[in-house]
């Protein structure tokens, strides 16, 4: 059995989705944790110090390359699986079967596409201007706290971010536990743990992200 055979099989493709998904889940904890520094309410001192570390230390910058590789694999593999799976039905049913599964479990492709669009907006709002200012190498970055204040003063930007984070929440509500099933967790006790963890994570992390633009928009932060 060659590695090519493994990763081109339907189970192998799902394993790629699962491993990259778990990697992205871990990244979101770091991202949310760092961003939560805005609630220190110190005019962005703590947040900007964290952002400075992430942008000027070689380790996070190397990990950033891994993050983009993982993200790219997750997106490309996900889109290819979605297109392939949609082609397997042939003729559609006149009455579709919707009672046996959750709507968000059936809509991972759609939710993922919404998140991808949101991600392009998000990266062009913050990551890209920051790296462009640095010349993409280690160097002086822009004041990201001030940038957040400026961006989230617009209502439509806040609405786009809330919608993007809600899509992320539903994507995680299925994706978290599905990722662990895909790597073979079949023990009932562990499935129950991962199910609880998954729903908790899918609520807490997106809610933390949602509260960030809202906090700036309603001037809860100085």
């Amino acid at each position, binding site marked *: *059995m060659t*590695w090519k*055979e*493994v990763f081109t*099989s*339907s*189970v*192998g*493709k*799902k*394993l790629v989705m699962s491993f990259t998904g778990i990697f992205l889940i871990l990244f979101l904890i770091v991202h949310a944790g760092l961003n939560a520094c805005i609630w220190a309410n110190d005019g962005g001192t703590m947040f900007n110090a964290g952002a400075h570390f992430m942008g000027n230390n070689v380790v996070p910058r190397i990990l950033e390359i891994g993050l983009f590789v993982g993200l790219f694999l997750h997106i490309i593999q996900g889109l290819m*699986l979605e297109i*392939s*799976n*949609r*082609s*397997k*039905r*042939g*003729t*559609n*049913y*006149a*009455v*579709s*079967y*919707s*009672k*046996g*599964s*959750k709507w968000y*479990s*059936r809509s*991972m492709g759609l939710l993922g596409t919404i998140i991808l669009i949101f991600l392009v907006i998000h990266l062009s709002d913050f990551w890209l201007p920051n790296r462009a200012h640095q010349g993409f190498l280690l160097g002086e970055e822009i004041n990201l706290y001030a940038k957040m204040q400026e961006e989230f003063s617009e209502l439509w930007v806040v609405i786009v971010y809330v919608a993007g984070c809600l899509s992320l929440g539903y994507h995680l509500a*299925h994706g978290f*536990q*599905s990722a662990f*099933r*895909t*790597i*073979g*967790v*079949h*023990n*009932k006790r562990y*499935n129950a743990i991962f199910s609880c963890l998954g729903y908790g994570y899918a609520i807490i992390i997106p809610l933390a992200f949602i509260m960030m633009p809202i906090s700036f928009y309603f001037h809860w932060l100085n």
Partner: protein
Amino acid sequence: MEHKNINLTLKVWRQQSTVSKGEFVTYQVKNISQEMSFLEMFDVLNEQLIQEDKEPIAFDHDCREGICGMCSMYIDGKPHGPWQANTTCQLHMRAFNDGDTITVEPWRAQAFPVLKDLVVDRTSFDRIIQAGGYVSVNTGNAVDGNSLPINKNDADASFAAAMCIGCGACVAACKNSSAMLFLSAKVSHLALLPQGDPERQSRVVNMVAQMDKEGFGACTNTGACEATCPKEISLSNIARLNQEYLLASFTSAE
């Protein structure tokens, strides 16, 4: 329970052959006993069609006891109809009310091409089994039941997986037309027993390869298959298959 006869409107998929275009045809059936099974109601409709000099509706059936896996109707948006853990042949007309309109379709999947009307070709399942769903090592003569120690939980889980009748409802229900619940049941019931152990790696690898070759979709763990399975095959079998495949891909010597 009060005995009632009901009148129904049926919208049934009619298709002459695999290559021809199908369409829904509407039929009226009258005075149907609620004690009839769904297939018996179709027998009545076919008698009616024969008397009208029309072609009867082709549909799969065999044991009519819920154990063979032949019946395969997609009734009102659910494989095997509205009841849980039930096959079409065990669905009875008391599930419906007088005046109902029932839509009946064949399993829809590219790997299950329609042969005629409600009959689909499920030989792809046979080929998946032929790829490794068996034990070919010499297990010797029958021995005393207790001479081979098997954990009770494993024996029960293996038996629960072996309940799969291969009807294909999982494929019909899955939005990806994936055969993973069927395949995982066949892999699990052998993987859990010592007799299945020597060939566990080649089995899972070959059966997954055959499933992909047949044109089934990939599993996305939505759970629709488990919810509609007439034998209540658990979704945890799919996770076990994934584990078997992952271990085989990392440790296979071939």
